[in-house]
Structure formats: C-alpha cells, structure tokens
C-alpha cells in the first residue's frame, strides 16, 4: 500500500484468482480496516507467478495469511471467513485492549 513502514505488515499468499483467495483478500481487508486502520499494509503474493517464494515462509496451504510484523510470525490458513479465529490468530484483540 504505502512505502511507509507500518506497525502491522501482513502478507497474503494465494495461488491464482480462485474464489477462496478472493474471499480471503476481501475478509482480511475488512478486518484490517475495522481494527487496524492506518496501521497496516498487505502484500499479496501469487505463488503461481512466484513459486520460489513459497519456501521462505513455509507455505503449504493456500490461502495463507502471514503476520510478518509484529513478531512472532503468525500464520492463518483458509479463506479467513471465521473472523473470531483470524483476530485471535493475529492477536488483534489483545493489542486493542492494551
């Protein structure tokens, strides 16, 4: 999104424009706008175009959302339709509380 280093850096791995990947992208954008407005960036990596990148983040399943920053790295696989799980996985609620 922007060149500025964000507090939250997310990366979404997809394999082509499948319904699942589109759904996942929609979902994460929605949650991020809701909870992390202005503090996040999302990088989308299409493994069909860059297969060599799969090894780096140990990607098995698609779609996979990776939280690069803040550490530790967290991964959430699936189309992210379960908001509760995504937020827990990303540790978003906790940060909001603190």
């Amino acid at each position: 999104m922007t060149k500025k280093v964000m507090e939250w850096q997310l990366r979404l791995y997809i394999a082509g424009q499948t319904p699942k990947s589109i759904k996942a992208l929609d979902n994460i954008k929605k949650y991020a706008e809701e909870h992390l407005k202005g503090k996040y960036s999302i990088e989308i990596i299409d493994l069909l175009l860059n297969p060599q990148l799969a090894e780096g983040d140990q990607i098995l399943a698609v779609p996979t959302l990776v939280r690069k920053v803040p550490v530790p790295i967290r991964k959430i696989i699936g189309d992210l339709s379960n908001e509760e799980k995504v937020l827990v996985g990303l540790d978003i609620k906790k940060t909001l509380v603190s």
Partner: protein
Amino acid sequence: MSTSSKTKKHASSVFKFPKTPTGVEGLDEITEGGLPKGRPTLVCGGAGCGKTLLSMQFLIKGITEFNEPGVFMSFEEPSADLFINVKSLGFDLERLSSEKKLVIDHVRVERSEIEEAGEYDLDGLFIRLEYAINKVKAKRVVLDTLESLFSGLDNQAILRAELRRLFHWLKEKGVTAIITGERGEATLTRQGLEEYVSDCVILLDHRVIEQVSTRRLRIVKYRGSTHGTNEYPFLIDENGISVLPITSLKLDNEVSSDVVSTGVPGLNEMFKSGGFYRGSNILISGTAGTAKTTIAAYFANEQCRKKERVLYFAFEESPQQLIRNMRSIGLDLEPHVKKGYLQIHSSRPSLNGLELHLLTLRKLIKEFNPTTVVIDPISNLITVGSDHEVRSMLVRLIDMLKINNITAMFTSLSKQTEHIRPDLGEESVSSLVDTWLTVRDIEGVGERNRGIYIIKSRGVGHSNQVREFVITDDGIRLLDVEFGPNGILTGAARKTSELNKKIAALKLQNELDRKDREIYRKRKVLEANIDALKNEFESVEEELSILKATEDLHARLATNNTSNLKKKK
C-alpha cells in the same frame, strides 16, 4: 514414459511392467526391476527402521547411477540435518544439490504458528513441489513422512482430500515417488496412507529377537507385477542399505570337475579324485580340540600357495591369534595375508543376527572375490538363531557360494557323544554339504588320539578308514594305517604294535647272527681238520720218498761195488 524404449528392447518378449531401479542392493532383485515407474510407492515402518535412508538412497542412486534427478521433500528433518545424517553414509548431498541434480526442501509444519480460519487447500505444497521438480527436471520424488501434516493441520477432511489429489497429481507428473509413513496400530500407516497409494507398498520392520536385532523388508503389494513375497532381512552399514538376496529356487548352478587339493598331507589320498571338487561344500565336524581349525587353515594355506584368493571367517579367533596359533605348527599364513591372497575376517557371532552375518559374508565375497571361503566355525552361527532360521540361512549361504563356484569349507563343533555319528545339531547342515569329514577323538587307555574319516563325499570314491593323524611342530600328518589283531591301531596301541614288531625283528636278526657264527666256527673246525689230515698225508708221503731214496742209494752202491770188484780182478 520410456515404456516404448523398454518394449523396443524386448520386442519379442512379453510386456514388461515399466520399473525404476532403486539402486538399493538386493531390492531391485526382489521387486524384479525396481519400483513402479511414474507411480507413487509407500514405504512404511516403525521409528528407526530406515525409511528415510531407503528413500534417500533411492534418490541418490537415481542421480549417480541412472542420471535421474530427484526432489526430497522432508516434513521432519531440516535440510542441514539431512545433509549431515547421510554424509556419514558416504552420500554428499551438498555437491549433488549444487550440481542442480537434487533439491531438498524442508517443509516445516508448526502447529503453534498456524491458525485455521475457513476453507483452504494445499496448493502451496503442490506449487513448491512442482517448482522443485521443474528446477532440476526431477524424475524421482520423495515425500518423507507426509503424516507430519496430520499433526500440523486440524481439518482432516481437507487434508485427506488434498492427499488424494496429491498422489493423483504425482502420477500425472510421471515422477516415481516414495512416500514414507509411520507404522500404525492396526493399519500399515498411522493415517491410513495406504488407501491413497495403492501401487506398491513396502513395509520395513525392525525386530529384536533374543537381544539380536534384525531389520526386515517385505513387499506388501505391488500392483501389476510379480515380486518376492517373503520377508527379506536388510542391513544398514557404511554403504547404506543392502537387502539380502533371494534364495535361488532352482538348483541349476554350473558344476566343475576341477579338483582342489586338501592341503593336508595324506588326506588327498583318501579321496579317489585326490581332493575336493572345486565349488563344493566341505563340512568338517568334530568335538572340541580335534584340529578342525588346523585342517581348515591348511586348506586355506594350500589354496593361497596356488595363488588363489581365500576368505577366512573366524568366529572364534582374531586374525592375529589365528596366525600365531598356526605358526606354532609351522604354518605361516602371514605372507598370504600380506600378498593379498588371504583375508581373515573375525567377528563375534552374537554381533549380528544370522541374516546380517549372511549379508556381511555376501558383501565381503563380492568385494574380495575369493575362490575359496572358510567359515570357522559355522556352529557358532547356529547359536544365534533357531534351527529353522539357521537352516534357511545356510541354504542361502550355500546357494550363494555355489552360484559363484566358490569352494567352501565349514567347520562345525559337535557335542561329545558316544556314537560315532555326529550329533543331530549338524543335521541341518549335513544334507546341504557335498563332502563331510569328521575328526574325532579316539579314546584309549589313558590317552586321546585324533582320527579323521569321511562320512560322505558326493561323486568321489573315498576311503572308509579312520585315519589317525598327528600334529607336530612341523604340522599335521596323516599316519599310515596300522593293522592290529582287532582292527586299526592308534596311539599307544600303534606304538606298542610297532615296538613288538621291532623286537621280533631284532630277535630274528640275533638268531640269524648266531647261526652265522656257528657255521663260521664249524667251517673253522673243518678247515683245521683238513689241515691236520693234509699234514699227516704229507708226512707219510715224505717218509715214503725217504725210503725210496735210501733204497736207490743202496742199489747204486751195490752196483758200484760189483763193478769195482770186477776191475780188480
């Protein structure tokens, strides 16, 4: 696929199932050519039974021997660990991967890092695999313990569906794949992978029986091909895995009519052929201390002298000990060792299971390529396994030796029995060997002598005598047969008999001498008598001649007187 090239080769023969050779010693023989080409094979077994090694060897041999690049996808060990683990087995993965022939990809599945939220598939894995395959144009793929996925991911339904898709996809790719899986309670693999991989399933097993461990391999199924169905023992050593060869089912090995000398002075004469046939098996049985090893060493020495290679397996003595002991009877094996004709291999029988011993033998025989093999003693191996196992092992061993036309000598320790026939323990061997010699103690009054005799010798006329032999500082020697009133004599009885003969001869000589002297004396007397008579005769003759002369003188005197008288007148 190269089905066409294979069928071209065997245009006239029947269709041959396309196979990919594994390069694992022995496994290709059991599978009759290798794993199904272009299909996945499941290798399953418990922890530490060699799954990873087997699959790694499959890949590496594929690269080094068949020029088929490979991909190793590890779900368990990081790449660096793998590098080190197999380096000790002589495989240099780093070099192969830098030459772009091998890709090692470690797929780490960390449950704590992964949250599942909604639908997903394993396209990521597929993409990685495809990327790796394309990178080196791999023909062989290994997925090492795919089951780790099950512990990393929750949604079993998706996982199973994806695995099914994965195997299907591998087939479409035309790669020959090995998938490893942990052994489960009731199923072959913990997660029932055998449901998905149905072309070929190989089961590895690591068993400990009576404190001796043996690894075994069995082909559970192999669709579209015949295969060996037994459990085959296999060995992991510094060269990786080797599987035991199959017992040859036919007895159609070539036979030789060459004769090899026994090396023991006098023993050759007990055989009409003058020795053993080349490629035959000789068993020397006997109780403790009957010089079995000595005879075996003599045999080995004789073959070495003829510049033939001998492999000597000593299960009781170390090579140095054997050489020293043989030197004490004037047999020096050391030069043969130095010249490379003799190789002595010592190990404790309990070091390995039976089958492993057989494998070791086989390996050494392959490396050293001897014409003669000595196993001293084979009975020590028997203590390692049950009768049945021993027999099957010996059958395989003897088969292997016969196929290679190797003359083999086994020694066997038998229990001391009253019977002249050796005990039943040897029955397992007896029907398999061609020539059977027995050395035994012949106990007499206060002494123990060694006797050797031939129980059987296939295809060779042989002596039926029990020959006594002695071991001196100059070695072993068969003594001439000494007949006594009650049969053949040995030891002290032999000595007594010899002494008696000597005394008798001496007596006779004395008698003869005495007679000679008597005759001499008689002649002396006769000659003296003759002399006396001669003297007497001479003196009589002399007297007569004196008389005659006197008579003559008187006559002449008388005539002279008469004429003188006439003149005076």
